[in-house]
């Protein structure tokens, strides 16, 4: 049993490694482009709402806390507490997505979609290219991240269902633990995304 638990954990960590690298490449690309278009990136990032960004950061950090408490409760066979913590986590995730939705629709409205849809600045404007590249990264990175949050919600709901059925207890709570790890990684990535995109640009 312990053997299986350790193996699953190792497997999960390896999977998380691939997730980090997946995002990491985008970070590297972002950093290199930032070096190339510093003024443009600075200008572009003013379009991001740092209050909403900070709000979402707090929401995610809090959800990480509730998640770890869910794991903790499961490991002590506290089914009720696990259920409650999982529900709060899911609600936080949904709140995050809702805020993201408003942010996105605002940007789209302003014509800040990247590439051929970038209409905020005239294509003759010398700043247009760098701005568009910034939003290319912005939408790629937050989009991929948002997708991970969404996937997280789905998985958390499944987990909730099983927990309600009473599947997990101190002797066996591997899935709760693994989903917890996943959720923290999604949070960890946002910890980097937020300052780089919203604060520094």
């Amino acid at each position, binding site marked *: 049993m312990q053997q299986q*638990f350790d193996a699953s954990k190792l497997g999960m*960590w390896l999977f998380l490694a691939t997730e980090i690298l997946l995002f990491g490449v985008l970070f590297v690309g972002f950093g290199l482009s930032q070096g190339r278009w*510093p003024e443009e990136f600075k200008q572009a990032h003013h379009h991001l709402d740092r209050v909403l960004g*900070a709000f979402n950061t707090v929401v995610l950090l809090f959800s990480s806390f509730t998640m770890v408490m869910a794991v903790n409760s499961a490991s002590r066979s506290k089914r009720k507490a696990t259920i409650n913590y999982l529900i709060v986590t899911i609600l936080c995730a949904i709140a995050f997505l809702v805020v993201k939705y408003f942010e996105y629709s605002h940007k789209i409205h302003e014509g800040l979609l990247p590439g051929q849809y970038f209409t905020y600045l005239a294509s003759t404007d010398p700043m247009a290219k760098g701005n568009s590249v910034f939003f290319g990264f912005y939408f790629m990175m937050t989009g991929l991240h948002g997708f991970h949050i969404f996937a997280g919600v789905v998985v958390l709901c499944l987990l909730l269902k099983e927990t309600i059925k009473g599947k997990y207890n101190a002797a066996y709570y591997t899935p709760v633990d693994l989903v917890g790890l996943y959720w923290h990684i999604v949070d960890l990535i946002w*910890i980097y995304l*937020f300052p780089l995109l919203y604060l520094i640009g």
Partner: protein
Amino acid sequence: MQATHHDSHHHQHHGEHAHHPHDGFKQYLAVLGALLVLTMITVGASYLDFGAANIVIAVLIATVKASLVALFFMHLKDDNPVNAMILVSCFLFLGLLLTFCLLDIDTRVDESPTGKTPISAQGPPSLGREQTSTDAAPKPRPGWIDTHGGGGHGDGSSAAPAPAGQPQHAPAH
């Protein structure tokens, strides 16, 4: 062997929770508090301008936060060190990718007849636009590419998929 080694870790870890049910909660709450404070600090710092150090400060604070999450929420603190190694090696690999890309991009030299200056020395803001203007009016390919001996090897671009006539990268790179 290895298995026994981390077995002990785990038993210790879970045992702890069983005996002091509130320890976990308090500790996690403290971590959450620290994370929130650090978030406030980054937001605060971003209102001050440290110039180029801005990004360094932001990444440093983010790394402290990430470490807190990894050590406490993800239990790396008392988990099998192999898992921590996996996490750290990810960052090392990304560092590698970034370093080599920077090594290339920051030392590219404009090989065209008009200039032998490192592109990065032309000043950052103009860099991009310089590049753009080169795209608009392609310069001849750098001279050393043409030193190919044999016949028919005019196309020196890397692994150009089509025989001829497809767009090339900006030669000034």
